[in-house]
């Protein structure tokens, strides 16, 4: 079975470490916050200028001056700090964020990522995504392995305009956890009940399979 959105978030959460500063993109990455392991302290960075993002507010707590990068109303966690956009991206570009999780349309064997534009269709802009992929060392891309029509999103070469070049090392799809190194995809784990053959079939770029590939554990 392909992973659900919640399972994707759960698997990413297993990569968290105590004391991590983490930036979560919009969509599935946001859900990761729901699966921070008990007893672990993680601080969420929101690139509009908040470190220590809390949960969504109650009706009474809503404050128009307090939003996240997805423009949703939020609260501040204990120990939060607020800063301007240049300071926020100094953290990101300066490599101070321990883990970045974001979505993508395509990734390829050279670690290239396309996530912000579909020419002629979707031209809303990159927001902070280009800064995040260029600045962070530890990035996990979450995405579906293939389109609804079975077209692979793990390619030899990205076809869409790039968000970043040579910056992605880990990809978690609904079928597999994959590492990118030396110009190849390397299969690390497979979703429970998904065979290696299924993953091979839906991976366009060269995929290295070494030994028995374990199933993800939840």
């Amino acid at each position: 079975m392909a992973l659900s959105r919640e399972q994707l978030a759960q698997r990413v959460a297993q990569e968290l470490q105590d004391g991590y500063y983490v930036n979560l993109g919009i969509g599935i990455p946001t859900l990761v916050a729901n699966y921070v392991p008990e007893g672990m302290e993680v601080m969420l960075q929101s690139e509009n200028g908040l470190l220590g993002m809390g949960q969504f507010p109650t009706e009474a707590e809503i404050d128009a001056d307090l939003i996240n990068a997805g423009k949703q109303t939020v609260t501040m966690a204990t120990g939060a700090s607020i800063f301007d956009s240049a300071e926020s991206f100094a953290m990101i570009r300066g490599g101070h964020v321990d883990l970045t999780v974001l979505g993508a349309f395509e990734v390829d064997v050279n670690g290239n990522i396309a996530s912000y534009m579909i020419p002629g269709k979707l031209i809303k802009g990159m927001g902070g995504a280009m800064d995040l992929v260029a600045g962070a060392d530890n990035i996990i891309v979450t995405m579906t392995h293939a389109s609804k029509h079975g077209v692979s999103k793990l390619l030899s070469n990205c076809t869409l305009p790039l968000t970043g070049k040579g910056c992605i090392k880990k990809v978690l799809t609904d079928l597999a956890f994959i590492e990118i190194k030396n110009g190849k995809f390397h299969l690390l784990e497979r979703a429970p009940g998904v065979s290696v053959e299924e993953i091979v079939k839906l991976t366009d770029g060269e995929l290295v399979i070494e030994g028995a590939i374990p199933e993800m554990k939840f």
Partner: protein
Amino acid sequence: MAGFDKVVSSYEEAMAGLEDGMTVIAGGFGLCGIPENLISEIKRKGTKGLTLVSNNCGVDDFGLGILLPDRQIKKIIASYVGENAEFERQMMSGELEVELTPQGTLAEKMRAGGAGIPAFYTATGYGTPVAEGKEEREFDGRHYILEPAIKGDFAIVKAWKADRYGNLVFRKTARNFNPLAATAGKITVVEVEEIVEPGELDPDHIHTPGIYVNRLILGTFEKRIEQRTVRSDA
């Protein structure tokens, strides 16, 4: 106005001197911390052919989006747009020029513009459409592109509190691009929710010193929320 007193009493006075074809840098992220009344004043004035520098372009009937129907914006430099239908229509038809700029690069362009730094190298955008036509250089084995700074004829800023000298304090994430915009305008106009006397703000708590501010006006704000999100377990 006398000495360091930056307070003006009307929005007309606040935006006096804004002319067709000028560049305006605006603070705000989404609809959070936008100088909403200064934007309304630009609409009322009917100034045209403007280049707007702002992270976003508002929604159809609020924020910078209200400058679209009368075609007041010629070009926008932003990181994320298209939260409104008229914007998309003008962009697709080529009536509106859009320069998509990574958010961190946009913030740094304003910061550099205000700090007298003409350009800077950044890894952001290397190997992407953003790098097209820009100088590339390698430092310690990593690739960077040269990004020019941005300065505005005007900067329009929303702060929370100010003293009459234009020392500014922002509130929560309404700070965002505002302190950077404030540094990068030849004329920086700030609207605030409260103005106090000099000496009433703790100097250690001032986010933007008054040296960057030319005009200051007291406003009232709608503060529209773009994505009202609440938790259900409350």
